[in-house]
């Protein structure tokens, strides 16, 4: 609030003038102020305004408002015709404001205040009554006035803009601006800046004496044109006034009084000192929330204190750490991040050349003196930028600047004394991902001819600026960065540890109070743990009953399967029409029609037969073609013969457990099931040689503690949760990349209840890997309904696919159930859109009543409510809810409560199925009307899960330690009815797509090397438009390349080579819907892509430094090569015949195979660099040419090693090819 006292005195003195101007509106933006202004977007009140001592006329606590741009505004509705805000011919107006501008780009016109031109419906777009704006020109903000003149006969309306000649620089503190004008008199215009009258010109549309357009459009402060970003004010506003009349020169002169310089005024670059500069290595401080990408914070207050500080061994910043929220879930950095690195360096005497690279603007200071700057991050473009030639290397063979980065060089004269170095770089921004590019400081010492990254910490060797050393250094720094991420995340997540300890206690209490089913005893079957006792006991029962039972071929072979297939969906668990047909007793009962379903021996009286004949009026089954004559005859025959229902026949001779697997088979299976890659030859040898009888249990424990556990199990979660990110604009039911949340939850061993809760709470950053990414469902009319469907199948075994649009025909789930659940997720009532309903017309003119029902009507409102009382009827303790009224939180708690037994059972069944190949309940995602093959075992496993505090590893451990898991994979449980699912053996499982790819890489001792997964390599698009999923290290990290635009220039050829293999083996890059079961059927493309695909060219090539090359060079004889290849790729030793076949091929020339001339380590040959293609330039012709060349290079693969004789090498490569093309390779043993 401004002191008005001095003004009042002036007013008294100048009565005539002040009366001429009447105040229409005045906003002080004080803390207590209540006004009719409606804030839209980034409007921040209670900010520091102009204050004494610099601005003595203001209150010491004066506040202002900050506008963040991007359409941020205050809106005031006009009161209607002839309102006080309407100005027309002959009216005088004075507009004034205090402004502090943070950002104003070249040629922009930003609105302080204006009436009209809001682009609201019902108004012309050319209806500016009046506006006070700032216009950028010549690097200054100029005072500008704008209106649109009313059209007259033969004279359409036009824009009229007056702009001052003088202005003020951006970021130079507080200024007062004003204009006054009398409509009808173009000469009357006057502008004011800081109390000084300034000259200007009518520069657009010219001067006019015509009337302005007047209508009832609103008054907007801070923006215009529907919220156009480039017309939105970014900075601070205070004391905005609208006056009717012309304020006198003296009044306007007196409005501005400043004592000395505004402290915020632009000063020459000045270093904000860094505290605690280390003597060795570099300290990095990251400050978030800075608002500019082309200017620097001027004070500690603007810089804010660092959010994260850490050390780096030398100044190479390939990325910044991940930002986590208060729960340890991935979040996005706020605004621009100011990276400040500081260290002390000592250089030898002499003149040295420095090189600085940075994507965002950067500055480097030596001993407090600014020595160099680089320009700001380049802005977004439409894709038509020219393809730039490859930038010159700083020295021959050295790595040029990264794409989209800037670099600068300067020389430094060193006296050999320590120098304090401070480096600052602006990373990302409000609109950009926070990627520093290939940011580094390098140096070429006097007398040397190459650049190396500046040395920092003692004992660390910084890389030379060549590709080979750079990539190694980045790999090394990345490992440190991952450890830092882990540390930051774990620390943040500790904030929730107390809550989860409480939840764990509740689970343990529940387990204590609810006894698990008693573990039965069985003496007749191999038993390693409780699992085997349960399975054996069931077999014991079967063998006993089988003795008394009498088989009936026709009934069990034909009649029962027919009933099951055609009738049970509605007449078993469900009682449609009052009939159940699943036992003889039920069958004989009368239903709604009053007639008995079956009267044994009497065809005429059996109502069942009335309904299944093809000519029946409401023919059953209602869908499909109905039963054929043969099937009807079968049922007639059976009823005629008395409708006998004999006991299930069991062929005891078939009840044989498969043999226990040997050590090598076990080891390969165990590795694949825990960490997703097979054991190395060395690991196999050690395991086989180990004589400890508990070695299998020990290796299971070791594997479960291996961090690669997360790399394997994440794929399953991606599938069942439909994780479906798209690197280009989200469409086609895309979600955000919440893979990163999942991976970290698995890596941190978060218990299932915690992980599921954190997922459902959808926290952190939507596009940067938080669980918030789960909330997104692009192109979907009700995203939360899509999510409720996922939650239902994944955690509750409830398939609500049909309920998305109507009540499910074969399930008891209604559409309302699904939408109630969706509303809980959405934290508010949902309105059913028309597009998610069955149109009324559909039900007209039906010959029979439709099976599907639509109990909800379009536009019906559905309130949040837990719909599945039969699954969980209790409530959750209040102490479990942080926000008592939050339905989403409540839902998460209801799902994960141990009282909700369904959750633990569904989870236990899922883990069982993953490891055994078939569930105790099938299908695992749809439990309605399904029986468990071993209900007590399921119950016991879920009890174990709860008793462990929902630790899934405990379940995995139990299952893997059973004999059931360790038997040969000869099972046929999956296709069997529950009562015939004995688990005599686990199912044979094909390796998953990810396992195939990861095994190819790990067995051949090489790393995945593909392009970064992004179309925006130079970081110029926002994350909501283009993601960067990084460079994958494991197969789960790939994603659909989304080239729906079919543009060759968007191809990522090395990614595509891997994806070709993944897709052939059933991986889905785009997971539009949740899927529990992957497709496993064999088809042509699987062996074909392994035989001829680009990836197999890579794997079957001996290249410098990969594992197979090492093997080829170090082997003592061909037999050893055969043994190693079989162990690595197939997990077993070759037979004599196999060995001999390999030996025959590798023996000739074996002793002379190694070329000792080539130095070690052999540096891979590189091809000439190609120009860089990104979204920025993908629409120019050359982009396609470059991509075609990249494709060619990918197909050709890397150059082979020169350390091996080419002829011998090719034979070895052929052996490798043959080994991984053996069908055996793709199976989990």
């Amino acid at each position: 609030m401004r002191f008005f006292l001095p003004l009042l005195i002036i007013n008294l003195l100048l009565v005539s003038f002040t009366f001429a101007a009447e105040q229409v509106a005045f906003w002080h933006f004080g803390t207590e102020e209540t006004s009719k202004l409606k804030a839209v977007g980034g409007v921040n009140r209670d900010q520091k305004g102009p204050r004494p001592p610099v601005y003595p006329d203001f209150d010491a606590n004066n506040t202002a408002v900050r506008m963040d741009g991007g359409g941020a505004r205050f809106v005031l509705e006009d009161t209607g015709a002839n309102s006080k805000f309407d100005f027309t011919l002959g009216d005088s107006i004075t507009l004034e404001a205090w402004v502090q501008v943070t950002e104003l780009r070249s040629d922009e016109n930003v609105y302080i205040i204006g009436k009209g031109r809001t682009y609201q419906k019902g108004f012309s777009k050319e209806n500016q009554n009046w506006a006070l704006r700032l216009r950028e020109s010549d690097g200054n903000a100029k005072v500008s006035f704008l209106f649109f003149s009313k059209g007259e006969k033969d004279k359409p309306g036009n824009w009229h803009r007056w702009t001052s000649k003088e202005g003020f620089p951006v970021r130079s503190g507080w200024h007062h601006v004003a204009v006054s004008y009398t409509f009808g008199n173009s000469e009357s215009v006057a502008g004011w800046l800081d109390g000084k009258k300034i000259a200007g010109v009518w520069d657009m549309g010219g001067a006019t004496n015509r009337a302005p357009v007047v209508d009832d459009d609103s008054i907007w402060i801070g923006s215009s044109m529907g919220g156009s970003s480039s017309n939105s004010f970014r900075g601070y506003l205070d004391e905005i006034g609208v006056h009717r009349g012309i304020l006198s020169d003296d009044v306007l002169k007196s409005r501005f009084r400043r004592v000395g310089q505004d402290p915020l005024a632009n000063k020459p670059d000045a270093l904000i000192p860094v505290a605690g500069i280390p003597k060795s290595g570099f300290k990095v401080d990251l400050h978030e929330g800075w608002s500019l990408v082309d200017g620097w914070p001027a004070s500690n207050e603007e810089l804010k204190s660092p959010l994260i500080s850490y050390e780096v061994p030398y100044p190479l910043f390939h990325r910044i750490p991940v930002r986590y929220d208060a729960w340890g879930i991935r979040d996005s950095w706020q605004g621009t991040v100011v990276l400040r690195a500081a260290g002390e360096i000592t250089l030898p005497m002499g003149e040295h050349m420095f090189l600085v690279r940075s994507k965002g603007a950067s500055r480097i200071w030596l001993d407090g003196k600014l020595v160099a700057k680089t320009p700001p991050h380049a802005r977004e473009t439409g894709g038509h930028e020219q393809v730039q030639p490859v930038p010159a290397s700083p020295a021959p063979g050295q790595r040029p600047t990264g794409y989209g980065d800037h670099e600068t060089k300067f020389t430094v004269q060193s006296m050999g004394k320590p120098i304090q170095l401070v480096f600052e770089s602006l990373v990302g921004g409000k609109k950009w991902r926070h990627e520093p590019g290939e940011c580094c400081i390098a140096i070429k010492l006097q007398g040397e001819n190459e650049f190396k990254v500046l040395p920092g910490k003692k004992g660390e060797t910084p890389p030379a600026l060549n590709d080979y050393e750079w990539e190694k250094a980045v790999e090394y720094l990345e490992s440190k960065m991952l450890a830092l991420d882990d540390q930051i995340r774990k620390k943040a997540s500790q904030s929730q540890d107390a809550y989860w300890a409480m939840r764990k206690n509740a689970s343990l209490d529940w387990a204590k109070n609810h006894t698990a089913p008693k573990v039965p005893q069985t003496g007749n079957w191999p038993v390693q743990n409780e699992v085997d006792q349960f399975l054996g006991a069931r077999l014991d029962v079967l063998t006993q009953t089988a003795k008394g039972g009498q088989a009936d071929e026709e009934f069990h072979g034909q009649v029962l399967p027919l009933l099951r297939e055609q009738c049970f969906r509605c007449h078993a668990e469900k009682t449609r029409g009052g009939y159940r047909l699943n036992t003889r007793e039920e069958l004989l009962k009368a239903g709604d029609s009053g007639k008995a379903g079956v009267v044994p021996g009497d065809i005429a009286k059996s109502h069942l037969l009335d309904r299944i004949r093809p000519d029946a009026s409401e023919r059953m089954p209602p869908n499909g073609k109905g039963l054929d004559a043969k099937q009807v005859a079968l049922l007639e025959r059976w009823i005629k013969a008395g409708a006998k229902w004999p006991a299930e026949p069991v062929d005891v001779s078939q009840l044989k457990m498969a043999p226990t697997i040997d050590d090598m088979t076990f080891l390969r299976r165990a590795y694949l099931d825990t960490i997703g890659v097979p054991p190395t030859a060395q690991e196999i040898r050690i395991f086989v040689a180990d004589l400890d009888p508990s070695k299998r249990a020990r290796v299971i424990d070791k594997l479960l503690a291996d961090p690669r556990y997360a790399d394997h199990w994440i794929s399953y979660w991606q599938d069942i949760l439909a994780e479906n990110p798209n690197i280009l604009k989200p469409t086609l039911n895309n979600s955000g990349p919440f893979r990163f949340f999942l991976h970290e939850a698995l890596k941190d061993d978060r218990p299932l209840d915690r992980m599921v809760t954190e997922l459902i709470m959808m926290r952190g950053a939507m596009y940067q890997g938080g669980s918030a990414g789960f909330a997104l469902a692009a192109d979907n009319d009700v995203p939360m309904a899509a999510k409720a469907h996922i939650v239902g199948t994944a955690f509750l075994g409830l398939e609500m696919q049909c309920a998305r649009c109507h009540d499910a025909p074969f399930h008891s789930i209604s559409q309302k159930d699904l939408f109630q659940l969706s509303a809980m997720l959405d934290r508010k009532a949902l309105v059913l859109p028309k597009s998610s309903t069955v149109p009324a017309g559909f039900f007209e003119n039906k010959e029979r009543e439709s099976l599907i029902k639509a109990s909800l009507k379009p536009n019906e409102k559905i309130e949040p409510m837990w719909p599945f009382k039969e699954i969980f009827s209790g409530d959750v303790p209040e102490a479990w809810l942080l926000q008592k009224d939050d339905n989403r939180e409540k839902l998460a708690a209801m799902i994960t409560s141990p009282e909700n037994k369904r959750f633990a059972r569904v989870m236990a069944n899922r883990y069982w199925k993953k490891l055994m190949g078939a569930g105790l309940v099938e299908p695992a995602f749809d439990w309605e009307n399904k029986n468990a093959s071993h209900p007590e075992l399921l119950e016991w496993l879920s009890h174990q899960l709860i008793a462990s505090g929902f630790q899934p590893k405990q379940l995995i451990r139990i299952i893997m330690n059973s004999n059931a898991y360790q038997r040969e994979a000869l099972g046929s449980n999956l296709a069997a009815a529950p009562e015939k699912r004995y688990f005599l053996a686990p199912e044979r499982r094909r390796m998953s797509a990810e396992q195939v790819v990861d095994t190819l890489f790990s067995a051949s001792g090489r790393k995945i090397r593909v392009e970064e997964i992004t179309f925006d390599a130079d970081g110029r698009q926002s994350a909501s438009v283009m993601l960067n999923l990084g460079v994958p290290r494991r197969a789960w990290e790939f994603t659909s390349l989304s080239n729906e635009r079919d543009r060759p220039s968007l191809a990522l050829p090395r990614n595509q080579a891997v994806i070709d293999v993944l897709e052939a083996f059933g991986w889905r890059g785009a997971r539009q819907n949740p899927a529990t079961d992957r497709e496993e059927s064999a088809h042509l493309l699987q062996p074909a892509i392994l035989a001829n695909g680009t990836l197999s060219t890579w794997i079957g090539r001996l290249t410098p430094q990969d594992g197979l090359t090492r093997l080829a060079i170090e082997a003592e004889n061909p037999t050893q090569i055969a043994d190693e290849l079989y162990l690595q790729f197939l997990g077993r030793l070759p037979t004599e015949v196999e060995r001999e076949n390999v030996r025959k091929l590798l023996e000739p020339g074996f002793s002379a195979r190694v070329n000792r001339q080539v130095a070690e380590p052999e540096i891979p040959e590189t091809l000439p660099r190609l120009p860089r293609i990104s979204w920025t330039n993908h629409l120019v012709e050359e982009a396609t040419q470059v991509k075609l060349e990249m494709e060619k290079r990918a197909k050709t693969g890397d150059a082979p090693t020169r350390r091996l004789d080419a002829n011998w090498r090719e034979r070895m490569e052929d052996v490798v090819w043959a080994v991984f093309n053996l069908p055996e390779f793709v199976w989990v043993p």
Partner: protein
Amino acid sequence: MLNRRSFLAGSSTFLATHALASESQKSPLAPSIPMGKVDHCIYIWLGGGMGQTDTLDPKRLGDPKKKVAGSYYKGIPTAVRGVQVCEHFPKVADQLDRMTILRTVNHDVIDEHAAAVNRMHTGRTVSGTVVYPSLGSVVAHQKGAVQDIAPAYVLIGYPNVTRGPGFLGSKYNYLYLTDTASGPAGLSRPEMITDSRQNRRESLLAELRKVRSVASKDAKLADYESALEQSLRLSGPGFSSVFQLDQEPASLREEYGGEFGQRCLLARRLLERGVRFIEVSHNLNFVNGTGWDVHNQGILNQHILIRDLDMAIAALVNDLEKKKMLDRTLIVVSTEFGRPPEFDGGGGRGHQSTAFSVLLAGGGLKHCGAYGETDELAKKVVSNPVSVPDLFATIHASMGIDPSKNLYDNDRPVPITDLGVPVKKLFS
């Protein structure tokens, strides 16, 4: 007049669910669904959105500078009286009696390419609960390859999810190649593997396979083994010679034109070998910067794209006719949406889906040059609308596939088209 089934438009998941009832009720259309007997389909894809007023539905000339709406090029008469196409289609104009331009195709997606591409490949909107199969996959699923040795569905273009098999499973996925210089990923032997190396590889593999020959009673293992046999056969010299375009006479290759024409020639060779469905992408976006997505300056060289297309289609129709295959092959020239007659700020065009053109040729259809009428600037449908389901139904019917038949996503029935009805006029 709107399509009589337009009340269903925009219903995302409804039609899948609908099947349950539509099976049990007698469809009034069922007896009258006309059926063709075409063996093959070539689906030419113009990614980006071909503007109908500049190509197959010419209207009065516009002026991009003065922002006067209208066609970019003049119209010319064709072999069918009263039907015009743009001046850059001289060859298509001469052959239009063997073709029909469906001028009233329409849907409701414009703002995002991927979603519209999805619509024009699956005939459906995204639901999140069902992943629909592409046209090619449905045809592959229903009809298989024409000859056993060949794959059923080949894509000459980039792989993407909208072209995929959806719930039908990867068995019905495409084999793809991105240019005519290479065979499909997986079936073409890497360039550097010579015959002798390939022989050495295969004989070693055969020897090693003998050692642990599969227990034939395990169907899963046996299936994989037989897939392996099949892949070795298909990547062998027999089938892969289909990719050697230099076996064609030079004059014919010239007639087809540049890379896109060569793709069409390859498509003809593929269907001779027994491929059922071939999608050929005309994705040469570098010709004018933006391909068919002619915003702003992208429109300046649009005529080059059109002429390229004209040449290739005409050559393909001629070639198939000479080989007596035109009646057994349906050619569809399709795109994700059209473009408005108005010009954007840079003199190019935005997106329009209320009415746009799809061209059908050959396929033993009763062609009429053009079907359906748009208003004076091709913004709206005036008569005979063709919905996306109708378009799909027409293609299916011409291939002898009942468009109302159900497919199954597990046990959930999903009709092949979203209640589409074939354009009867083309069959009678």
